[in-house]
């Protein structure tokens, strides 16, 4: 890829106008190229400046109160507590690899997953790191369905460990979403799409655990799809 093409890819990535497949390609470039990362940083600041040229408008009356209420609601919602465990030692010095999917119920053909990833209706949830572990985890789901895909970029683990996805409804309702097996994107099926789920990632013994045994490394909230 020549310099001009690289710049175009990075600029359109920063503009957030690429398909999921194209985004993954650019992210692979970014993962290994400091030059691409610097170019992205430049475009991001430029586009931030461009956005700030929007005509000024006052936020609607009561918006701050509504946000205050949303924030206050978080206080009352207890995050499920998972037992702590020393889980970072095996991965501290690891290099990044790309892990692209995890299966919940049934593996789907790759073309079906590509369709889901590129569906403009798809709901995208970025799981938030809870500690020092680097990486990214994204859950993509279709509204009015029970279908989704988990896409993760995480450091490799020791051979006897695997990342495991959890679908958490409450402290007493935590279901396994499956373990990250390989680099192929895999379809996810939600048990009940009418529910909101807290999505969590932990490290577990190879093959997975019936309940989480480690602290969550990433957490995110998936709204009800129906």
């Amino acid at each position, binding site marked *: 890829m020549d310099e*001009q093409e690289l*710049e*175009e890819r990075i*600029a*359109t990535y920063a*503009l*957030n*106008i*690429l*398909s999921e497949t194209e985004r993954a390609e650019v992210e692979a470039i970014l993962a290994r190229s400091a030059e691409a990362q610097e170019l992205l*940083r*430049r*475009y*991001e*600041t*430029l*586009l*931030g*400046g*461009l*956005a*700030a*040229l*929007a*005509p*000024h*408008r*006052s*936020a*609607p009356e009561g*918006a*701050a109160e*509504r*946000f*205050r209420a*949303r*924030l*206050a609601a978080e*206080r009352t919602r207890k995050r499920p507590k998972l037992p702590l465990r020393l889980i970072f030692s095996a991965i501290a010095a690891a290099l990044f690899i790309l892990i692209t999917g995890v299966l919940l119920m049934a593996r789907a053909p790759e073309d079906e997953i590509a369709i889901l990833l590129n569906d*403009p*209706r*798809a*709901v*995208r949830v*970025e799981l*938030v*790191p809870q500690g020092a572990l680097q990486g990214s985890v994204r859950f993509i789901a279709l*509204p009015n369905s029970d279908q989704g895909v988990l896409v993760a970029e995480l450091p490799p683990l020791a051979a006897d460990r695997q990342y495991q996805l959890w679908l958490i409804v409450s402290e007493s309702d935590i279901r396994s979403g499956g373990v990250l097996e390989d680099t192929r994107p895999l379809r996810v099926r939600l048990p009940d799409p009418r529910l909101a789920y807290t999505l969590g990632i932990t490290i577990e013994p190879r093959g997975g655990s019936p309940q989480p045994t480690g602290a969550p490394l990433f957490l995110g909230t998936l709204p009800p799809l129906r």
Partner: protein
Amino acid sequence: MEDTQLISAIKQRDQTAMLQLYERYADYVYSIAYRVLGDQESAEECLQDTFWRLWQRIDQFDATRGAFATWLARLARNIAIDRLRQMRRRPKLSEALLSDDAQPTMTFLEDWADRERAENLRALIENLPAEQAQVIALSFYGGMSQAEIADYLNIPLGTVKTRMRSALQKLRTAWESSDQK
């Protein structure tokens, strides 16, 4: 309290600091959301989602990579574009990068460090060839891919790419040269 102090407090899960930051930047984020989405209800949803995302992911803000206001503006714009796609509709397509009907929202920020650079950017946009500004506006405010723009304008994809590349390179060069002054 300075933004950096508020951000540090938010990283410690200080909700009071979060609300202070909200008060400071709500109009700013709402202005950006409204520019993309074109209606009050959607723009407010985007406003709330942007600050909620900020609350959840404040660790992703890296002060060494740029000003907070720039980062927040980009976050708001991306969330607005995602919402636009989820709604599967486009508001009245904006083919102009700048609007004449109001002051840019960044001029209302007290601590906007890049204000001068943004003013320079505005001046440069005004001098961009119309067809280049048009493709940037369609992608930036309409969230359209290059192929969608080609289809919408009924011009070859290669032409869209050339116009977009040329415009973005000019803008980036000007933005960075104003940074060095």
